[in-house]
């Protein structure tokens, strides 16, 4: 008798990839943005000597470290997972896909991991400017790492710079530069990095709001609030611009994904933008649809009338193109997931931007405020509705609360962004080249995948609780007090000041130890 788990061999591997990747990506954007933001604050400390910047550096730096620890360890698994669960994928694309991964390790990971150690333990070992350079190196490392891995992912979305070797039937790299610089990679990088900064900025604003509403640690939190709000607005706008650009590219490269994102069943021109849809996937149409006429044509092609291909027509075209060779029969992704994922991504992301814009306006600089509303550097900013009128106490309280809650919004948007773009590419692992079903490891049993998935899920859940509690504890505690050693950084590498300081420093405790 045939026992059917009702699972295709790739289903479990996909779930595992989804769980571990989304989890990993909870930490990545915060790591990328907090590295740069912390580096910026430390630069301000080195340049101005104002203690509030040093305290802010130490505070955000600590939260950054709690976060990067999780980002690093969950990242190791990502690099192993291709070989473990997707060995046929690895064989097929290793020649192309392996290169950016190896670049990432050799260039970016070494940077990050080495200089983070120097930064954590180096406060009393390195002269001020060298110590500052270390955190910038970490920041550069995180951004480089993002570039290489996104270039690799972009190749899965839109394979370029390769050929299929007729002998082995595998993909072979022919133009690495093209892989690194194709428009998909550039747009994905821009979109992901700006989203990362939106995430970090919202995190900063949220925690600053938490303290400001309680009138605690005001000088540090006031500065953090401003840095956060400015970053939030700038990066939020850039997320929107780069997202629009990426969507236009996707309309060309993966029309199916974008049709699914809009639940646009039949080719229409002008095509409407869907606000709400409920449909029947088997029948291939929507039963309920609320639409804005012509807007989708505009989003895809910059004018209000160009036709946008629908799901049904695209599916027929793909069947014609690929069925003889692959016989997949259905080239549609999971449409409700694509449709709602796309909306949640945009909705949560843009709500954060809106809150940033409102916040930046309400806390604007004193030039635009009547003298009665101006506040000093050690006061909680007053939220000013007009030049002379303050926001009422209830609304003020609500704004701070909303700012606190918005912390989670970019995280949610990021998750749905990845779920959308990866599930929207299905049934392909490499679009138009390698179906996902042909990518899994033939030698790995379902039992092994179930075992590893259960272990990861339990471990990740426990670590999530641990990490969240630690973050909350340190976020609540606020910026640390400074010690004399903090204000008296060494002038020589290895510690100490001036010649002969070594003997002196021999018994001095470390500024930081695990």
């Amino acid at each position: 008798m045939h026992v059917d788990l009702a699972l295709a061999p790739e289903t479990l591997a996909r779930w595992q990839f989804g769980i571990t990747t989304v989890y990993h990506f909870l930490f990545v954007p915060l790591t990328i943005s907090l590295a740069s933001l912390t580096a910026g604050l430390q630069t301000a400390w080195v340049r101005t000597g104002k203690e509030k910047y040093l305290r802010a550096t130490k505070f955000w730096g600590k939260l950054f470290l709690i976060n990067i620890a999780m980002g690093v360890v969950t990242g190791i698994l990502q690099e192993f997972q291709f070989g473990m669960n997707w060995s046929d994928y690895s064989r097929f694309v290793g020649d192309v896909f392996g290169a950016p991964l190896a670049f990432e390790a050799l260039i970016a990971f070494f940077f990050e991991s080495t200089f983070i150690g120097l930064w954590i333990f180096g406060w009393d070992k390195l002269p001020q400017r060298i110590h500052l350079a270390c955190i910038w190196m970490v920041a550069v490392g995180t951004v480089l790492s993002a570039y290489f891995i996104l270039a690799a992912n972009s190749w899965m979305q839109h394979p370029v710079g390769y050929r299929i070797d007729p002998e082995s039937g595998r993909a072979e790299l022919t133009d690495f530069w093209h892989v690194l610089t194709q428009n998909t990679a550039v747009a994905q990088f821009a979109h992901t990095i700006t989203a990362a900064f939106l995430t970090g900025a919202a995190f900063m604003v949220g925690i600053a709001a938490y303290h400001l509403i309680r009138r605690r640690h005001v000088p540090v939190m006031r500065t953090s609030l401003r840095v956060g709000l400015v970053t939030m607005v700038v990066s939020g706008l850039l997320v929107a611009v780069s997202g629009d650009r990426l969507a236009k590219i996707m309309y060309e490269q993966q029309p199916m994904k974008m049709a699914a994102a809009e639940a646009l069943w039949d080719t229409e021109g002008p095509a409407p933008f869907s606000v709400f849809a409920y449909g029947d996937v088997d029948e291939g149409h929507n039963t309920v649809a609320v639409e804005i006429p012509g807007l989708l044509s505009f989003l895809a092609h910059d004018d209000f009338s160009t036709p946008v291909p629908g799901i049904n027509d695209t599916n027929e075209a793909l069947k014609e193109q690929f069925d003889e060779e692959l016989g997949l029969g259905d080239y549609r992704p999971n449409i409700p997931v694509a449709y709602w994922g796309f909306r949640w991504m945009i909705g949560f992301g843009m709500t954060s931007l809106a809150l940033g814009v409102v916040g930046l306006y309400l806390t604007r600089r004193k030039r635009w405020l009547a003298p009665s509303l101006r506040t000093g550097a050690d006061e909680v900013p007053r939220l000013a509705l007009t030049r002379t009128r303050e926001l009422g106490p209830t609304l003020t309280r609500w704004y701070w609360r909303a700012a606190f809650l918005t912390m989670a919004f970019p995280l949610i948007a990021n998750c749905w962004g990845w779920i959308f773009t990866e599930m929207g590419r299905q049934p392909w692992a490499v679009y138009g080249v390698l179906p996902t079903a042909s990518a899994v490891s033939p030698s790995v049993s379902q039992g092994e995948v179930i075992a590893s998935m259960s272990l990861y899920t339990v471990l990740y859940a426990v670590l999530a609780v641990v990490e969240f509690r630690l973050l909350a504890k340190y976020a609540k505690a606020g910026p640390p007090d400074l010690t004399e050693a903090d204000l008296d950084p060494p002038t020589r590498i290895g510690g100490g000041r001036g010649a002969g300081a070594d003997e002196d420093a021999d018994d001095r405790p470390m500024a930081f130890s695990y």
Partner: protein
Amino acid sequence: MELPTLWFVLIAVLWTGYFFLEGFDFGVGVLTKVLARDRAERRVLINTIGPVWDGNEVWLLAAAGGMFAAFPDWYATLFSGFYLLLLAVLISLIVRGVAFEYRAKRPEERWQRNWEHAVFWCSALPAFLWGVIFANVVRGVPIDAEKEYVGSLPDLFTPYALLGGLLTLALFTFHGAVFTALKTVGDIRSRARRLATGLGVLVTVLALAFLGATQADGGGPASLAAFLVAVAGLLAALVANGRGREGWAFTFSGVTVVAAVVMLFLVLFPDVMPSSLNEEWNLTVENAASSPYTLTIMTWCAGIATPLVLLYQGWTYWVFRKRIGTRHLAPDPHAASRSDGATASGEATAPAVR
């Protein structure tokens, strides 16, 4: 040198770097239960590798990434075939990394004790499993004509592989003990030296058995030379350790690790994963390699990046060259968060100026 051969060498270099560096990290982790007498000493041990363990671990990612790009079939067969072993390694590395970072982030006794258990077990387990994994790679496992691993988990636990695992566990612990003697002051330093002597004898026995069996089974003159260097390094490390020349002892234990790994790769060459079923199904440097174009690009990248990495990682070791002892530990790291009512742990707080 042919490109695939060059990349075989580079992969060997990356794994050698990994085992040399994370070897003593694992060793130090094991010593937290074997050598340390109390919490303060455990902290000293963890802090000897504090600034560097993360950078050391990236050598693994570079080795794995390099295999993926240069020998996709090697990477695919090894990682999917040794699925559960690598799963255990991964889980260990995940928990271990978090343990280092989080252990001191809370003052509670139970919290710190749990993470310390994690540091020990998650250092010992991968130190053992890497030996098992490499022994199997060198000796050959059931691989079919499609380059797929067709054995089962128990197939990987042959006596030879278990011996390999014991050797790496003991060797890394020895390497870690010698490193500890070099990096600490006080009572723990002399105890590390005494422990290293005992461990060194054990490692010598295991090395003669495992590397000897490896040499007897598939070795040539080059691997014999590496074998002899490994054993000579071990004896030299023991002598230097006995005379209190800690820098030399560490150098020689490093030579042993390097020579042992080099020897395994020499025995392996020109295969990368031999099949125990049929010689024609062996994965070799030729049939598992990427295209010349990819290998050329990768050679440029590795050729420029690796020396730079050695340079700035070497600089890190120089910055943190000072020995540490219990008196050097930073006052309780919770001094900073006292305002939030964390319980005192009995250590002095740093003088605050504001």
